[in-house]
């Protein structure tokens, strides 16, 4: 195979468990390969071996653009071979300029180590690079002032530059991208995909890790699917349909989309009137008992703010809320929890769970008084109750003492959701619960939410990805710039329609209340 990356017979064992089992695959030049699989399927282990972070069990060679390199690589060797990695957090320094951020990877192009640095020349060169990727920003701008999409493109453009240590400036790269679009508003994803195509068309190999099936269908030339550390499929994307792709990832036939066992009741649990905040501009809606209501909209539409106000994490500027007939104006998250509102925040790792604590400690956060009897924490009772929750919510691996940092994203999210559910809420508020987790975990969380609603709990789910709301919500409120612009019901809760409404509210008729 010409160019790109080829590897054969790669295995990696952690503590007796096979994370990679005899993996042979290739990421050819001039193609975008989607690397797919559940959290824990071995994708990240594979990438980390190339990044020089892990050693394979047995020495192997990897061929990168016709150069044969022996594994393990050091991170420096990987870089010099043209292997590039872009992480979700982009590793850009907000307080520095675009040009200075380039210099980290690219080094200042000076004649000697001691300079002199020509700011003008640096800026001109960076501007030229950015222009080839369709970014017209001034290289002297602070990265912190840019929007996430532009930052993502800059991260990608930077990754495929070469430091002056390499002789050949036109050399090609294998670029690994970890969920580059996960944090982007849906209408801007295309700009990032366009940059991926540009890198491919210049002869680079692009490896895309993504949980967004629609995106993979749109952009990938090939798909490589891992399951339990093995390559279960490696084929052209053309000829695959989304269902087939999901089937490959999940294994066997895709399970049925879940169904509600019961319909929502008529009784109103939450009533919101004229709610205002820094973003929200007067929102009215109601949620009935046992109803699952979605909130769709682009980044900045006020969705997170609405969730935070309901959770007591932020104060409303005006408006009234009623919860189960009582006035509801939480000043703190604990007020909201006492009133019966549980919250799953958007930032799972930063605000949802405490990654440095064990699963058990996370699950009983805020609930310890249940186990505090006779002046002592009953640790055995806490452990027993944790095991029950692990079983009930299918958290894997089922080890209460394992640090939350070591769980996959989907299992971390199940832990956060299960803690919220364990408080027996009357209203559950979830903000982007499906972000960055695999399809299997998405389905499990959707089913947890449905079961809860069947028991009479009211649920509000916010998401920028309309696909997450379809099949789950009875009604979806569409927000645009802080205003409620439409409410979709029943068959109207379809991905195309929600996306259209969120992006172009003006093209639609007046919202019906």
């Amino acid at each position, binding site marked *: 195979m010409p160019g790109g990356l080829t590897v054969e017979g790669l295995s990696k064992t952690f503590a007796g468990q096979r994370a990679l089992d005899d993996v042979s695959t290739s990421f050819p030049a001039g193609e975008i390969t989607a690397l797919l699989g559940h959290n824990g399927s071995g994708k990240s282990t594979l990438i980390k071996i190339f990044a020089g972070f892990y050693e394979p069990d047995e020495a192997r060679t990897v061929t990168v653009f016709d150069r044969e390199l022996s594994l393990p690589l050091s991170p420096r060797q990987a870089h010099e071979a043209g292997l590039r990695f872009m992480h979700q957090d982009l590793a850009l320094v907000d307080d520095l300029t675009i040009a200075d951020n380039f210099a980290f990877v690219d080094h200042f192009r000076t004649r000697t180590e001691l300079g002199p640095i020509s700011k003008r020349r640096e800026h001109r060169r960076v501007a030229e690079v950015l222009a080839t990727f369709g970014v017209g920003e001034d290289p002297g701008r602070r990265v912190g002032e840019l929007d996430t999409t532009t930052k993502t493109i800059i991260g990608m453009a930077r990754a495929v530059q070469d430091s002056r240590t390499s002789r050949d400036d036109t050399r090609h790269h294998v670029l690994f991208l970890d969920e580059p679009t996960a944090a982007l508003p849906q209408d801007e994803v295309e700009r990032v995909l366009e940059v991926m195509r540009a890198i491919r068309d210049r002869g680079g190999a692009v490896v895309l890790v993504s949980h967004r099936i629609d995106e993979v269908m749109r952009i990938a030339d090939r798909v490589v699917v891992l399951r339990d550390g093995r390559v279960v499929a490696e084929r052209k994307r053309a000829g695959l349909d989304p269902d087939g792709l999901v089937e490959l990832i999940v294994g066997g036939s895709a399970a049925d989309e879940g169904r509600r066992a019961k319909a929502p009741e008529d009784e109103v649990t939450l009533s919101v009137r004229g709610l205002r905040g820094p973003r929200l501009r007067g929102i009215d809606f109601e949620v009935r008992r046992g109803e699952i209501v979605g909130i769709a909209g682009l980044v900045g539409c006020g969705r997170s703010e609405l969730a935070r106000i309901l959770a007591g994490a932020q104060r409303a500027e005006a408006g009234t809320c009623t919860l189960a007939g009582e006035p509801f104006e939480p000043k703190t998250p604990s007020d909201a*929890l006492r009133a019966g509102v549980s919250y799953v925040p958007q930032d799972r790792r930063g605000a949802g769970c405490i990654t440095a604590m064990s699963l058990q400690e996370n699950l009983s956060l*805020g609930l*310890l008084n249940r186990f505090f009897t006779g002046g002592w924490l009953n640790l055995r009772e806490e452990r027993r109750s944790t095991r029950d929750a692990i079983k009930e919510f299918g958290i894997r691996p089922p*080890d209460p003492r394992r640090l939350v940092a070591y769980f996959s994203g989907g299992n971390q999210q199940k832990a956060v959701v299960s803690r919220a559910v364990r408080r027996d809420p009357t209203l559950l508020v979830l903000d982007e619960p499906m972000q960055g987790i695999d399809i299997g975990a998405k389905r499990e969380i959707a089913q947890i939410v449905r079961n809860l609603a069947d028991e009479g709990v009211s649920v509000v789910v916010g998401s920028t990805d309309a696909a997450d709301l379809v099949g789950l919500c009875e009604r979806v409120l569409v927000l645009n710039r802080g205003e409620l612009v439409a409410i979709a019901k029943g068959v109207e809760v379809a991905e195309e329609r929600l996306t259209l409404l969120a992006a172009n509210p003006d093209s639609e008729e007046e919202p019906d209340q």
Partner: protein
Amino acid sequence: MSSMKSADEAPLAVDEKGSGEESRAARGIGDRVLEYTAEYGIVIFLILMCVGFAIWQSGTFPTSRNIKSLLGNQAIPGILALAVVLPLAAGEFDLSIAANLGFCSVASAEFASHGMTPALVIVLTLMIGAAIGLINAAIVVGIGVNAFIATLGMSTILAGGNLLLTNGNTVFEGIGESFTSIATTRVFGIEIVVLYFLIIAIVAWYAMERTPFGRYLRATGMAREAARLAGISTTRRLAGAFIVAGTLSGLCGVLQTAHLGSAAATVGPEFLLPAYAAAFLGATTIRRGMFNVWGTVVGVLVLAVGINGLTLAGAPIWVPDVFNGVALIVAVSAAVLVARHRERAKPKTT
């Protein structure tokens, strides 16, 4: 650009099967030995040091007299080290504990020399210590000033207060035996302050490990926003940590005056580094990576035994300071290196 190196934050790090506790048994003997050595490294070091000094300075170190005086002299620094564990666990520094000790030492000396009963002196001084903690809490939690700066400022104010109270003199007149006995009474030949240290350690362990308060305090220190969203009042816990630290510092002040029978205007600052060194040493053992009570007790003993042994061997005057600093840096470095080794999860060390 290989930013995936930052393993602790990598969302890609989803299948690090080698890192969970349950998998420890499955790893090689070498890794397990390393793991245990790291976990109990400081404890092993303490034992080796005791054995070493007992052989080297066999005439002086392993005598009952030396050990009793060593414990008696370390009880007050020990209680102070426990005082810093709470704010540290909550993620904040309280640099005013040593100055608080100094101020309370001078204040209690003044009270005692004016003929107050020991009980009244204790109550008043503890109230002063608690009040200092409350003011710290109000500035840090209420106003939102960085704790490092706020308590540094508080330290300086208290040092000035000492000079105000004493005019720079040492207070000793009128401090009677009824007062000094609260620290110097002997129980089984050991000064009673050692018993206080032990009782406070047990209570502190109980509070940190067996109550919701301790767990929530740690949660506050690890991820304040996550703790708050889980319904924990992080401000109350933080304020509580400062007030308890202040009260314990005040107690150390009374005991210090009673132990010496006097209070110098300059007492205090010399207690700061050892207290932090002990707490940081403690965070490398027992519950590794977390500030914990028994680890801190071990840390206090490591510093005490090391300095005591070297002093008996005739070490010059600059050795204790260097020992304190070196012990802290070496211990923390070792913990970092081991954590890094574990993070990389090397395959099979046969």
